[in-house]
């Protein structure tokens, strides 16, 4: 039977991977449309192959040779840092203190930069290859961090497979969407996804870091849901408070200008 932490793990990895896949797709589309598809696909394929090797080799080796409590401390700490970074940025975007991530704007800038460089469409294009390779590898590294972290902290190959499956589902879905619309996915509610994933990463990070250091969580794994409720509530309170602060500041600025 599938337990609730496996379901939560699958959802977290899938949504987090989808956010990164949207960003990688923007780079691939900009490169493919301006420089040609052949080298762009080759760069992306090589990056995906590198990422798959990292998951298989690093993930399996770590499970076999590193004690579980050390893995949980390291993975929990990394996830907590990572989760709080996502959460803080998403709260700042939601409240208006930071501009929303605009995939169309990023796409236009990439297209403008790539169009300025000389190249031959149709033949092998080293710029398209490198841009696509770097884009997919860098965005993919964040996915890999999440896949390996979630896969390892559970302490079994099963968890690693579930996490990898979540990432594959997300990348497959976003790629299919990209192929259908052939332009950046501007309608994806990226900030809400980041708020959700930031919550989940923070909760899993705190839970596993605690487990690794010997903290006894009441109710065991069920306490993940309690942590989720606490962090979610805190997020809602922070968003509504800082939204009011931002609104007040805008009104003051408006009055000063008048």
């Amino acid at each position: 039977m599938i337990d609730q932490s496996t379901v939560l793990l699958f959802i977290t990895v899938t949504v987090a991977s989808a956010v990164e896949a949207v960003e990688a797709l923007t780079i691939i589309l900009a490169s493919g449309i301006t420089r040609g598809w052949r080298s762009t696909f080759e760069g992306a394929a090589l990056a995906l192959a590198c990422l798959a090797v990292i998951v298989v080799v690093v993930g399996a080796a770590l499970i076999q040779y590193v004690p579980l409590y050390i893995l949980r401390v390291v993975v929990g700490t990394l996830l907590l840092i990572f989760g709080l970074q996502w959460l803080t940025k998403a709260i700042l975007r939601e409240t208006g203190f930071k501009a929303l991530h605009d995939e169309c704007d990023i796409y236009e800038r990439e297209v403008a930069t790539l169009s300025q460089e000389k190249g031959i469409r149709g033949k092998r294009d080293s710029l398209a290859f490198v841009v696509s390779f770097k884009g997919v590898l860098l965005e993919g590294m964040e996915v890999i961090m999440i896949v390996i972290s979630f896969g390892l902290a559970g302490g079994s190959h099963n968890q690693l497979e579930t996490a990898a499956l979540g990432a594959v589902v997300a990348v497959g879905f976003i790629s299919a969407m990209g192929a259908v619309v052939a332009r950046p996915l501007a309608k994806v509610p990226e900030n809400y996804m980041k708020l959700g994933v930031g919550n989940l990463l923070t909760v899993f990070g705190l839970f596993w870091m605690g487990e690794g250091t010997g903290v006894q969580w009441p109710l065991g794994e069920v306490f993940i849901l309690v942590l989720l409720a606490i962090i979610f509530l805190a997020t809602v309170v922070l968003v509504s408070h800082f939204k009011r602060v931002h609104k007040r500041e805008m009104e003051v600025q408006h009055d000063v200008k008048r």
Partner: protein
Amino acid sequence: MTSNDKTPSVLRRGIKSFFSFWKDFLVGDSPVLALGVIIILGVAYLLHNSAVLAPVFAIILVLVLMTFAVWQKTRTRRHSQP
């Protein structure tokens, strides 16, 4: 220039970019979050024998860190505005 002269600089650049990648990845533009999480880790370890204090303090510290990080960023943005 011989290939031996080039090797250290290529190696140095590789090491530098490796560490700068991880620094960007983990610290980014919020060193306070990385530092705060390390402090929470230390507190959780020190209190791990107490079944009540360890979870309570870990949760409170995460909430404080989250609030402080957001407040600090909003303050920085306000001060950087003309």
